[in-house]
């Protein structure tokens, strides 16, 4: 299945160029993106996106980029063909949730280095930390080179299609260095491709990068000059790592300073005791000042979803069960905003209470609910939360601010 959320509104013909490649890619990606829902952004490339052919019915794939956006971009640019994409406004994608997987295939970006750099910025802005980037640019490996040299990315897999062998995604620590050297033009190893032709060893191969967690980027890595990476184990065996899950994405700790909010009481009756945040390490504070409010907000949202998923797991709820679909997934608002009421799983993106019927008793019949959802879709999201009064949260925050005032002033 491709994309349940867009299934009713979009039909995309996919050409599966090579099933075995798709399977190898899928195996690798799935072992590293264990959540049932994968947020995918496909940037560029035609319709021969092999990985989509390998997703299974039980996968919930949210394909964030839609044909409309692509068509609009292409039309606006006036200089790209139908199967090309021009990112003139990277903001287009920024409204989407960060993706677990970005597929970047054969992007042709006219307009010189500035446009290309903007494009890469857009890719970066859309990929969650710890997320995977798949690219197999055929011409000069430009995309692969870019991400190889980007200290925020780590090459974690290369799909190899040697003649007579099933394709596998392999990466050894030594081949990581070899690939860097080859792509830097320092040597030129050859291989026989699956058509029996002799080609550059890595030409046309799939590269899988993982976006590093920001806190893990060491100062020494954060310079463009840092082109080579010290192998972690120089005597690493040349074994494929395709079945080995990558390091977990960052588990964000619940902020320790969060004040438990007491039962909500009217303002005049409730003197709020300030809650002192525990002292943070200097380094942590320094990192925080470099993060923008928006970036921090995005990360916060992700950490909250992880917390919910953890609770679901702790309760023993199976990933893939209906409840998980309803509340354990990212819940993309646009899933409902498509106005297609058949995507009930997309209700997780809007009012869970309303879906269950706690606030919409009058909409008892499923078809009425569906009609209601469709009608609400036109106005995006309805105001569902008349009783979720946030007064106590505000009071607590103001009290905390007052308590911290001297420290804030110093900051």
């Amino acid at each position: 299945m491709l994309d349940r959320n867009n299934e009713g509104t979009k039909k995309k013909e996919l050409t599966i160029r090579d099933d075995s490649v798709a399977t190898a890619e899928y195996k690798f990606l799935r072992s590293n993106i264990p959540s049932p829902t994968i947020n995918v952004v496909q940037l560029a490339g035609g319709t021969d996106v092999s990985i989509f052919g390998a997703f299974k019915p039980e996968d919930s794939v949210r394909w964030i980029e839609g044909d409309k956006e692509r068509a609009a971009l292409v039309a606006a640019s006036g200089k790209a063909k139908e199967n090309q994409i021009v990112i003139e406004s990277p903001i287009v994608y920024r409204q989407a949730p960060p993706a677990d997987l970005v597929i970047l295939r054969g992007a042709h970006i006219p307009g010189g280095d500035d446009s290309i750099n903007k494009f890469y910025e857009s890719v970066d802005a859309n990929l969650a930390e710890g997320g995977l980037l798949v690219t197999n640019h055929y011409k000069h490996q430009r995309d692969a080179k870019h991400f190889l040299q980007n200290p925020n990315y780590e090459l974690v897999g290369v799909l190899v299609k040697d003649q007579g062998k099933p394709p596998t995604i392999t990466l050894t620590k030594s081949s990581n260095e070899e690939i860097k050297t080859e792509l830097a033009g320092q040597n030129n190893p050859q291989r026989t491709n699956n058509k029996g032709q002799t080609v550059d060893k890595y030409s046309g191969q799939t590269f899988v990068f993982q976006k590093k967690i920001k806190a893990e980027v060491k100062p020494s890595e954060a310079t463009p000059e840092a082109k080579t990476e010290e192998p972690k184990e120089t005597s690493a065996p040349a074994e494929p790592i395709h079945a080995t899950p990558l390091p977990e994405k960052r588990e964000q700790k619940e902020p320790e300073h969060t004040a438990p909010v007491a039962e909500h009481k009217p303002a005049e009756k409730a003197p709020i005791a300030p809650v002192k945040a525990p002292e943070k390490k200097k380094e942590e504070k320094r990192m925080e000042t470099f993060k923008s409010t928006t970036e921090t907000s995005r990360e916060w949202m992700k950490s909250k979803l992880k917390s919910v998923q953890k609770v679901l797991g702790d309760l023993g709820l199976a990933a893939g069960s209906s409840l998980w679909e309803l509340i354990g997934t990212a819940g993309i608002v646009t899933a409902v905003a498509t106005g297609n009421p058949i995507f009930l799983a997309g209700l997780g993106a809007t009012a869970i209470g309303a879906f269950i019927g706690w606030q919409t008793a009058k909409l008892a019949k499923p078809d009425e609910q569906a009609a209601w959802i469709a009608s609400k879709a036109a106005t995006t999201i309805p105001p569902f939360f008349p009783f979720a009064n946030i007064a106590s949260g505000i009071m607590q925050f103001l009290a905390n601010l007052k308590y911290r005032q001297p420290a804030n002033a110093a900051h």
Partner: protein
Amino acid sequence: MIDTRKTIIEVLSIINFTDDKEVFTDGILVMAEKQALTECIKSLPEHKRAPLIHLLNNTHRQRELSTILKRYITEEMYAKQLEKSTNELFLDYLETIDKTLDPETRAKLESYLALVLADSNRVG
């Protein structure tokens, strides 16, 4: 009564949040719902929670899900928990982004929130 959604959107404007403010606001509110529901399930006594989890794990239709949950969780429980979750979440968000604010923005935010509280007390 505070208009929660409007207030959060306004907060996002004040703090110069650059993504889509409405989408993010709805994300917070939806997250509060998610937390409320999971907390409701967590709070059930074991003899109720175990069969509920069993049923939920074997339910693959969203429509049945609603019926099952309503059997174990009352609207009142949920409403109470939703208010708690929304407040906790909003406070947590404010505390998180507070560290990224410059003093001027923080002062603006403080004034706005104080005004929202004052207004709600006047009306309520």
